[in-house]
């Protein structure tokens, strides 16, 4: 008894084998194209929709407005309008100024209100009702982590806006989430050598910390790096978000024996606590025979403007600054300045870059399927976007690039000219092993 049917010929077997081999060795994009039909909000018409989820009301509304300006500019450039901005300096030349994968980019917006629940609701609306293929934006780590989780569950890519907590690409990282902005670990690594140079190794720090995920992350990183320098930590006091008057938290600093005050505050809290610390004479005080110092680990130019002359001489770190003289930064400042009449903030920069990087990844992947786009972003190396040679690390979806240490300018020439870059910390100095911050990326979700 033969195993083969009598009608099976050698020629037939050869034919079948050849067809099978042809299918197995077909170009990957052919197979991928077939699978790519199966993902959430797959664009079917001539356009694709991006969802810009930014704070349009609430304490960070001005930053949100700047983010939205940047996104609009990015959409123009991707669609081939305007002067092209950073597309002219970006090392990837996949985008040709005719949209993405032959589709014109359109956008919808949502208001995060800097509240996690409101941000999730607006992201959900953009995904479910408006058909957004990707969500991006935000000015708070709490919001970023909440929206990132939603995007992971829904199955769309989340390109984080301004979020500085380690947790976004640490313990709360997700396979569908990507962050271009730096984090508190990098701030600590970049600031420590500058602080050592300016203030020495025999210092005692007192931390006032915003009582939420970003504040804890910032406090932890700065303590870690300053204690490595030999500094002591006198106390680390948690302050409620939006406290307004910080005087009752500042007065204990006066007689604590500390000679450095670290303000782990951002936004309005930073403006208020810094202003009040200066009013209490801390900047002019002498303790332990040394000049008292104030440090603001995360600076924002928009917020520094709010604190006025109180920022003068105070060190901090920032993701990007409009005064940088590399070709990418100059191109972006020119586009943004001509469109709006003033220079972009770091929030605007990171959002613009994220929109371009996402579009570029889709173009290189030849698809909008989240898992394909994620693969295109993972390990992607690029330059010409304002922070030198940069890599989207595959292990945690965190961008690694140079970090800026800045100082409040003593003699500002314009109201935008409040910070000066004192050090461009090279990427190698702020890099850390991916397992340091914990968390698991999990699996990518296409959402269908």
């Amino acid at each position: 008894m033969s195993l083969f049917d009598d009608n099976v010929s050698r020629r037939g077997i050869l034919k079948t084998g050849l067809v099978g081999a042809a299918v197995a060795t077909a170009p990957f994009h052919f197979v991928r194209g077939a699978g790519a039909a199966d993902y959430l909000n797959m664009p079917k018409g001539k356009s694709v929709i991006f969802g810009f989820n930014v704070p349009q009301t609430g304490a960070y509304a001005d930053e949100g407005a700047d983010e939205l300006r940047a996104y609009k500019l990015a959409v123009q450039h991707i669609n081939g309008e305007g002067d092209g901005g950073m597309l002219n300096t970006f090392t990837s030349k996949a985008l040709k100024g005719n949209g993405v994968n032959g589709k014109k980019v359109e956008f919808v917006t949502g208001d995060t209100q800097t509240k996690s629940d409101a941000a999730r609701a607006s992201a959900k609306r953009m995904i479910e009702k408006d058909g957004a293929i990707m969500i991006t934006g935000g000015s708070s780590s709490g919001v970023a982590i909440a929206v990132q989780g939603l995007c992971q569950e829904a199955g769309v890519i989340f390109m984080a806006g301004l979020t500085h907590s380690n947790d976004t690409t640490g313990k709360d990282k997700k396979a569908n989430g990507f962050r271009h902005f730096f984090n508190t670990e990098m701030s600590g690594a970049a600031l420590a050598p500058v602080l050592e140079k300016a203030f020495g190794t025999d210092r005692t720090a007192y931390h006032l910390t915003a009582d939420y995920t970003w504040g804890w992350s910032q406090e932890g990183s700065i303590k870690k790096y300053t204690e490595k320098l030999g500094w002591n930590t006198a106390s680390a006091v948690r302050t409620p978000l939006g406290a307004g008057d910080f005087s009752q938290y500042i007065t204990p600093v006066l007689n604590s024996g500390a000679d450095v005050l670290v303000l782990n505050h951002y936004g309005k809290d930073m403006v208020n606590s810094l202003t009040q610390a200066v009013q209490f004479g801390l900047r002019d005080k002498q303790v332990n025979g040394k000049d008292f110092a104030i440090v603001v680990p995360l600076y924002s130019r928009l917020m520094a403007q709010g604190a006025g002359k109180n920022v003068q001489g105070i060190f901090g770190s920032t993701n990007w600054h409009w005064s940088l003289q590399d070709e990418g930064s100059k191109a972006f400042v020119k586009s943004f300045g001509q469109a709006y009449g003033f220079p972009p903030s770091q929030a605007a920069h990171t959002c613009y870059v994220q929109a371009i990087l996402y579009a570029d990844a889709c173009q290189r992947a030849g698809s909008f399927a989240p898992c394909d786009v994620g693969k295109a972003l993972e390990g992607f190396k690029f330059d010409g976007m304002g922070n030198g040679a940069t890599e989207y690390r595959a292990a945690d979806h965190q961008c690694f690039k140079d970090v800026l240490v800045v100082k409040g300018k003593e003699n500002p020439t314009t109201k935008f000219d409040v910070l000066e870059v004192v050090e461009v910390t090279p990427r190698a100095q702020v890099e850390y092993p991916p397992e340091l911050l914990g968390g698991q990326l999990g699996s990518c979700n296409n959402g269908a």
Partner: protein
Amino acid sequence: MDAILLQILNGLDKGAAYALIALGLTLIFGTLGVVNFAHGALFMLGAFCAVTVGKLVNYQVVTLDPTRTTPWGTPVEIRTPIVQEWFGDFGAFMVEYSVPLSILFAIPIMLLIGVIMERGLIQFFYKRPHADQILVTFGLAIVIQEIIKAQFGANPIPQAAPDLVAGSADIGVLLGFDPGTVVYPYWRIIYLLFSALLIGCVFAFLQFTTYGMVVRAGMADRETVGLLGINIQQRFTVVFGLAAVVAGLAGVMYTPILPPDYHMGMDFLVLSFVVVVVGGMGSLPGAVAAGLLLGVLQSFASMNEVKNILPGIDQIIIYLVAVVILLVRPRGLMGRKGVMES
């Protein structure tokens, strides 16, 4: 001891702001029977009077210098401060003292705003339930907030105290402490004194003038005063304006302490309302006493020594006191018998 003294000063300072807002709130409740949730917005509007004056005295004429360009390729703007150029030293004085000078601007503006608010909206809600009053005044507060945000943006706008009083006073030396141990900003001391003066003026007006006497009589028995042929409603409208002025001036003088933003009124309103409840609805001395008391308690609750024993107590102390007062003495510390007790 030095830490305790500093926290008392902090508490009195903060409490003075609560007291000034609560004083207006309770004055309106006592006269018109209205729970005005837009009162915090009046505090914020006062602060923005200072911002407006600051902008006016710092007004600059912009000309373009075609020989120089910005990094984005447009001509550089040259800004010339007009007031200083026109008025010389007096112009410089106005720039330097813009916050105290704002008081002169804020008094008529806030009086006008108060009268318009009462005549234009709130008078239609006198006979409506308190819930309606709260809703309409809360809605009004949000509208005012959004107008200010649209006009001035969402970020805080710092207002500097005059250089003469921008630093700190080493008050510890006067009390026998080591130099530098009890240091307190001059402007906060001024704010405390200003609040005491303003509260004193309101009490003197109500206590020692015929107008004030009629208002007090109206607060006690509106109907009888009306039967005497006095137009008590008109006086109450003026009282509403007065309450707006008090809140506004509290806001003006607070600007060097807390850079004003559109939301600052709401931050103070809730606390001030608790102050009114603790002090006793309709009780003016109660509002002042409770404001200062809660300010000091909040300050002490923020001390590390206290927070180490009771974490988070600084966030709840005021509400905790309010709960206890409402349970034990619903009329508040100095409230009239019957109010909030039915």
